[in-house]
């Protein structure tokens, strides 16, 4: 037990310093709290939602398009469903889908980027030119094209997003890998007989993670936004899924009479994107020692 304590002591100290740095940056800390709140909401949505039965297909014509009230905090939609409950469930969908999209993009981009950077030569050229092709399209447009081809569904939308996003990770990791492969510990690792694959995954990839994590947290916001856009255009989640973009899409017909129907999902998207962008910026500052002490 004592041993464990001495072993853990430096770690705890490090967590404390990192936490302290986080606290010093108020905006980052606030957005971190908000993101934690989002995660809690996403996990416990069924318990928190006042009307969980309003999530999927159901009609309640007598209570359609009611303005916000004590019973329905954010009002009701055209079928009489509680918008607040649907937004809570929407958190779950947005977070999970974005996580999957970012994860998938990283899964494609990081190994390809590390391979390109470490190997160099024609392999590098081929991978990077493919990246260029993907990056030459605006990412939303590319995602729309892919989603349109694959058929509209939430799963296809997030695959489309991952496909249009991976070149960013490949580029970041490639840049890092090029500088890392000349470092002494990579040579030392070769000198004790590690294979190329091992070097890429044990030395190159872990050392690239700091900028990748920052980029991922910044991207998380944009991906939530892109996902909502795809759903808004009818290429993502399909009714009756309580997806934020989809809710705004259906609400546009009723916008003049029922402002709450579009405004509250819009605020949800706005806050989530803002929080992820702020935390990305904050993380970048924390991970870069030069900006740390400001």
């Amino acid at each position, binding site marked *: 037990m004592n*041993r464990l304590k*001495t*072993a853990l002591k*430096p*770690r705890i100290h490090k967590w404390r310093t990192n936490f302290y740095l986080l606290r010093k940056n108020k905006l980052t800390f606030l957005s971190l709290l908000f993101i934690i709140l989002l995660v809690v909401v996403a996990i416990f949505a069924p318990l928190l939602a006042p009307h969980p039965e309003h999530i999927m297909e159901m009609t309640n014509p007598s209570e359609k398009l009611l303005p916000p009230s004590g019973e329905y905090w954010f009002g009701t939609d055209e079928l009489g469903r509680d918008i607040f409950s649907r937004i809570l469930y929407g958190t779950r969908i947005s977070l999970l889908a974005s996580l999957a999209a970012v994860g998938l993009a990283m899964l494609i981009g990081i190994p390809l980027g590390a391979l390109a950077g470490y190997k160099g030569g024609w392999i590098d050229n081929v991978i990077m030119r493919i990246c260029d092709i993907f990056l030459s399209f605006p990412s939303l447009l590319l995602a729309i094209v892919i989603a349109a081809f694959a058929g509209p569904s939430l799963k296809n939308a997030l695959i489309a997003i991952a496909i249009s996003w991976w070149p960013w990770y490949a580029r970041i990791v490639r840049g890092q890998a090029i500088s890392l492969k000349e*470092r*002494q*510990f990579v*040579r*030392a*690792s*070769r*000198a*004790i*007989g*590690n*294979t190329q694959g091992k070097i890429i995954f*044990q*030395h190159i990839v*872990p*050392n690239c*993670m700091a900028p990748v994590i920052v980029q991922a947290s910044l991207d998380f916001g944009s991906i939530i936004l892109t996902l909502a856009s795809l759903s808004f255009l009818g290429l993502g989640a399909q009714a009756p899924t309580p997806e934020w973009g989809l809710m705004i899409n259906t609400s546009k017909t009723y916008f003049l009479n029922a402002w709450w129907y579009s405004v509250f999902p819009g605020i949800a998207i706005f806050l989530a994107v803002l929080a992820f962008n702020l935390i990305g910026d904050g993380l970048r500052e924390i991970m870069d020692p030069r900006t740390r002490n400001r």
Partner: protein
Amino acid sequence: MEDYIEIKDLKISFKSYDGQKRVVDIDELKIAKGEAYGLVGESGSGKSVLALSLLKLLTEPPAVIESGSIRIGNLNILPKSEREMENIRGKKIAMIFQDPMSTLNPVFTVGQQIIKVIAKNQNLKGKQARQKALEMIELVKLPDAEQIMEKYPHELSGGQRQRVIIAIALACGAEFLIADEPTRNLDVTIQAGILKLLAELQKTLKVTVLFIANNLSLVSLTCRRIGLLYHGQIVEQGEVREILDHPVHPYTKTLLQPLPQTEEEKEAVRRSLSVQENADQGCPYQFRCPRAEEICKKEMPPVHQIGENHEVHCHFLEEGESAR
């Protein structure tokens, strides 16, 4: 004693914009099993290139191995493929690099890195590997092994890091260790500690060591035999005491000289430093040698055996030296 390492006729060049430059040109270099051999030369004399070529770690191109053979144990190194080399590196030959500050991976703890090497090379897992790692840290005389295991490289001092690196190199279980200026960037007291450690480990573990340094006094502590490298060629080699007491080659004498005192000596140093040419023919040292004559520009100096264990590549032997 049986020769463990045998380098013959090894010629390595680098391609550059103005043609190929020869950086290593060794006729013969033999190291016996369990011996510590010191290779001394100034920067740019080809020490590190030679070390990397033993592991086949040179990037080709720009490096070109023109000819020669390297035998380590019963392995013929040069024709081996990259995949075969991956099995030889670490298991048979390990290397300690120049700069202890950057040889460890900054994102893993020291323990994780040692355990990884042990797991790879000795097929140990979990607790056993950890136990072995602790033993290795204790072997290199670092106190508080448990604590060191949990530390990241940046939390250790240069000397501690170099000890960890030595531990990793030994954890491979290699029988041949290349130490490429292991005490560079360390201050003098720490240097002494590391050298003492290396000498002790070499004796207790009976590994063969190729010790590379730019300073004769460093190798004299650890090695029994030394060779002096100039422009990729061995100009003098023999037992360390013998060479320190009776240096023959002018280059060796320069390296052993104390700081220049008189104007004359300073001028000689200045003159020798202004010349950086590569000799096309003749003695490689001809441009800097204080006693160079016509013959040095034309002919490769012959190998003179002085005594049993001392050879020198020079046209001139001082009076009585060949007789000794």
